[in-house]
């Protein structure tokens, strides 16, 4: 009785794959707004499950034992990777880029050994491109994950002539590929090509500093997508071509957004090593005075404001202050203060990371505003409260042509009526660039650990809120 069903499924396998592709595209379409986004995940899951089930009925399959082993191992690795903390999402994403690249590379390698030396020049070109990109994305993503997990040093690791060395290594991979294309019957060269590509991936990402990780992670995303699409060409599988093209274009769009947000070009990110410029920035160190304030004073200013724009940076997440910040947000809202969060595209360690961290702390997403909207609100705002952000608020990016971040779009906190900055000390930030915002007459520095300082503000505000409630009931 089951045999006819199997036959029917085989016959209509392609229909099932087309349906899966349509569900994938719908999935991304529904992700356009938070209201429909979860439907998007469901649609993707149904598409993937449909395609997976169809594949199990493929007539080419002769044994299932090792497939089952692979699926089981994937399940065992995959579930914990889906349950990581939200602060660890960037390194998890880099790891999943690595796994995606590994899968694509390994399948390409297997295709070569199954068919060599009977491979056409054209087929060999496809395999070589696919394997090179897959391998370099694999090791590159592992290095990126290591940097984000802080197993490897965050700062850029550079040496003289490094770009030439990297270029030479990449050329070696291409030359090996060309020899293999001309003579696919030289299988001993294939492992060399794989090895050189893996090595190039390491060289590609090691020199890139922590500040550029949002761009790198997006760029690797598009490489992984490209390798999957190329695998689709090798295996003549439309599902892979489409899924790879979607992943690739998503990574590409995000890379462009990240580059624009830092006013840097692709070449600059890949070969420029951000953070090297510190020496130039440090030369003028004139004594300037700053004004500081206590938590009590800060709370009083916030409570008296009509509108407050909070500018969070990764420092806020490092200090684990986001939950306290949300308490402050709740109290100010009950006091009738309009509070918004201005999110710079590179706040956090990957695109959109800051939004996830604040959403996790239960800040409603309609209070999270993009940089352009925030900048049109800030001139009317009573207070801009900067927590753990530095370079993204630096007015030197607009005014000082000599500044290494000149031209980078910033959140214009300096336009607010009063600026308050929570900061540990006057030490310059990650990129080592001094921030003139701190020396403005309207700026109050709130020195201390972000979590402790916000807790103090929350304590003072809750007293103020109680007082307000009492006077409201007393008046009745």
């Amino acid at each position, binding site marked *: 009785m089951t045999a006819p069903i199997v036959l029917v499924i085989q016959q209509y396998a392609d229909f099932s794959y087309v349906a899966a592709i349509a569900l994938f595209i719908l999935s991304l379409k529904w*992700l*356009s707004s*938070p209201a429909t*986004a979860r439907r998007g995940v469901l649609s993707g899951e149904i598409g993937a499950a449909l395609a997976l089930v169809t594949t199990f009925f493929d007539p080419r399959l002769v044994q299932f034992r090792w*497939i089952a082993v692979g699926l089981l191992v994937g399940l065992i690795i995959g579930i914990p990777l889906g349950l990581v903390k939200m602060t660890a999402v960037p390194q998890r994403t880099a790891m999943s880029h690595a796994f995606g690249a590994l899968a694509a590379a390994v399948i390409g390698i297997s295709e070569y050994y199954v068919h060599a030396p009977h491979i056409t020049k054209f087929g060999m070109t496809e395999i070589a491109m696919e394997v090179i990109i897959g391998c370099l994305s694999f090791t590159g993503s592992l290095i990126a994950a290591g940097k984000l997990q802080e197993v490897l040093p965050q700062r850029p690791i550079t040496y003289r002539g490094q770009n030439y060395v990297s270029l030479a290594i990449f050329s070696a991979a291409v030359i090996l590929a060309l020899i293999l294309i001309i003579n696919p019957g030289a299988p001993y060269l294939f492992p060399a090509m794989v090895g050189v590509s893996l090595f190039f991936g390491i060289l590609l990402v090691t020199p890139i500093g922590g500040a550029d990780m949002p761009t790198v*992670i997006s760029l690797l995303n598009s490489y992984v997508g490209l390798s*999957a699409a190329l695998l689709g060409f090798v295996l003549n599988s439309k599902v892979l071509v489409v899924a790879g093209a*979607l992943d690739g274009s998503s990574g590409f769009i995000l890379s462009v957004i990240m580059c624009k947000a830092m006013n840097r070009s692709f070449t600059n990110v890949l070969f420029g090593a951000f953070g090297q410029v510190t020496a130039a920035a440090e030369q003028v160190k004139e004594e300037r005075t700053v004004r500081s304030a206590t938590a009590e004073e800060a709370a009083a200013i916030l409570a008296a404001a009509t509108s407050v724009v909070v500018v969070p940076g990764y420092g806020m997440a490092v200090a684990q202050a986001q939950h306290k910040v949300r308490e402050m947000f709740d109290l100010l809202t009950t006091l009738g203060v309009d509070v918004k969060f201005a999110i710079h595209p590179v706040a956090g360690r990957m695109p959109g990371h800051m939004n996830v961290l604040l959403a996790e702390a239960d800040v409603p997403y309609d209070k999270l505003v993009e940089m352009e909207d925030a900048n049109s609100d800030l001139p009317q705002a009573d207070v801009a409260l900067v927590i753990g952000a530095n370079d993204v608020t630096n007015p030197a990016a607009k005014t000082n042509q000599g500044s290494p971040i000149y031209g980078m779009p910033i959140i214009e906190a300096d336009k607010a009526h009063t600026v308050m900055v929570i900061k540990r000390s006057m030490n310059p930030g990650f990129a080592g660039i001094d921030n003139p915002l701190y020396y403005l007459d309207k700026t109050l520095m709130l020195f201390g650990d972000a979590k402790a300082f916000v807790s103090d503000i929350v304590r003072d505000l809750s007293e103020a809120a109680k007082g307000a409630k009492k006077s409201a009931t007393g008046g009745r």
Partner: protein
Amino acid sequence: MPQGFITNLYVFVLAGFLGFEVIRRVSPLLHTPLMSLTNALDAIVVLAAIIICGETREVLPTVLGAIAVAAAFSNMIGGFLITDRMLRMFKLSGRKKQ
């Protein structure tokens, strides 16, 4: 040039443009879930891995295929799981928990 290549190229170019238009509209709020979701969708290479692993009894393709199945399937499971966890956290104001 094989015929299949041209067809695949059509598919690739069209899917690339379609992806660009659809993904361009994704709110920057959701760029992190976007990346984890596209990773999960990209894990559909597991289909190819399954075929490579199961179509023969030879050792090399079976082992390489099983590695690919594990790597891709972990991405699929983990990617969908974390995307949904993240999206569940995004709430509008006014709709307070409890």
